């Protein structure tokens, strides 16, 4: 496909991901990619998460459908993998919790009967990794998040949209980042 470029896997902390609930499409085409816009203005069509898988359950009725919970220093991500994510589902089925995992996947949102919007991740791949990789991810995600917070003053349409929609204090996310980084010092 001409001009096709792979979507970058964004680095988002669980807290920010959980506080995101605005999705939009770029263009009217039915194949136009869907994006999740986060409070710091990240336009997310793919995420990379490295964290600790602490729970996993097969909640499927007929075929396997796995729900997993992956934590980072700020909270947890929900991931759902079924028959259309065979590689990820297989790793989920075989691994023992708790374990460090790296998940590359697509954000998805679900509206509950009460009208709350729940964000989750549909993994394209899920592999067991080590603790160092997890720490490197925390640092990298902190760096990328800080870059986004600092860019909140710019005039890009996505950032304006995020600011109007979430109306969030930057301080909220600055303290999230510093809390995440400080947790690394505690473990050492």
């Amino acid at each position, binding site marked *: 496909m001409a001009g096709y470029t*792979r979507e970058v*896997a*964004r680095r988002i902390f669980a807290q920010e991901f959980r506080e995101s609930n605005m999705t939009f499409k770029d263009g009217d085409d039915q194949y136009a990619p869907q994006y999740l816009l986060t409070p710091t203005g990240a336009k997310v069509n793919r995420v990379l998460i490295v964290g600790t898988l602490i729970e996993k359950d097969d909640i499927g009725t007929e075929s396997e459908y796995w729900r997993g919970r992956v934590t980072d220093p700020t909270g947890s991500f929900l991931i759902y993998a079924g028959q259309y994510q065979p590689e990820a589902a297989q790793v989920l089925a075989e691994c023992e919790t708790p374990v460090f995992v*790296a998940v*590359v996947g697509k954000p998805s949102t679900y509206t509950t009967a009460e009208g709350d919007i729940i964000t989750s991740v549909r993994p*394209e791949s899920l592999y067991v990794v080590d603790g160092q990789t997890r720490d*490197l991810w925390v640092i990298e995600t902190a760096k990328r998040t800080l870059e986004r917070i600092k860019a909140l003053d710019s005039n890009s349409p996505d950032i304006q949209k995020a600011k109007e929609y979430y109306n969030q204090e930057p301080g909220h996310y600055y303290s999230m980042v510093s809390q995440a*980084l400080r947790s690394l*010092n505690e473990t050492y």
Partner: protein
Amino acid sequence: MKQLAKEISTKFNELGVEIPIGEIEERLDKMINKFKVPKEEARRSVVNYFLKEYDIKRNEFYSGQSESPQVNISDITEEGRWVNVRGKIVQLWENSHESISQVGLIGDESGTVKFIIWESAAANSVEEGKSYMLRNVVVNEWNGRFELNINKSSSIESIDKDIEVGNTTVDFTGVMVDIQSGSGLIKRCPQCNRALTKGACIEHGKVDGIYDLRIKAVMDDGASVQDTIIKRDLAETLSGMTLESAISLAADALDQGVVLEEMKRSLVGRYYKVSGPRIERYLLAESVEPIFSYEMTQIDELIASAEVI
């Protein structure tokens, strides 16, 4: 005007034709002063007149004069420029269209760039690994990349010197987020070294392939994506799997795919620093280093910048 006349006269002189300068001046004067022709147009018209008069080919007159500047490949950054490039043919590619005579990659000390020799250029053909001087080629931009077009006013001369192709080495640090199909244990065509798809080479059809290991990795640093090709020796060190052990692994499983699975399991989701030359969309890895550790000072700096509000 005197100067203009003199310029034209010297130019013809170089080609061995003596034209009385008075005659040139007279013609110019008539054009410019009587008929109000702009200077450049007048000059062209006068030159054309004498070219015809003395039966000189236009190319001969213009070749020396409108010589394009010679540039390094890394300096090709502007669309629509006419340039001369001296370089070595790094690769010739599959020709995808009948109006194209040859297409490939040319490189000099500063880098590499795609070139297209159009059929209509009727130019000399080039060979892989040989060096050439491309004169009067035009820079075009396509899909965000520059390319050189060799058209009918261009020329190709082979030169004897072997040009060292500089690899503009780039570094990319990020997470390997995927390994693409066509990785792991693959077979190559014994004639052209292309990777086979379903046991067949696109050029030579069904052939007895030769086994090889490679990784087509997708690296991602959270801001951009870099496709990377990791060849056998590096792939072996990285995955801890030799070609022989991969072959036997695949034989036991009756499936080549297990090698790719195994590589994904041990590599995807981890941080690496890759470096090597970038050719088209791929970075051809010359080194791949896993990253395990970080500096404590890095964390402290980030904390500091998070807490200065």
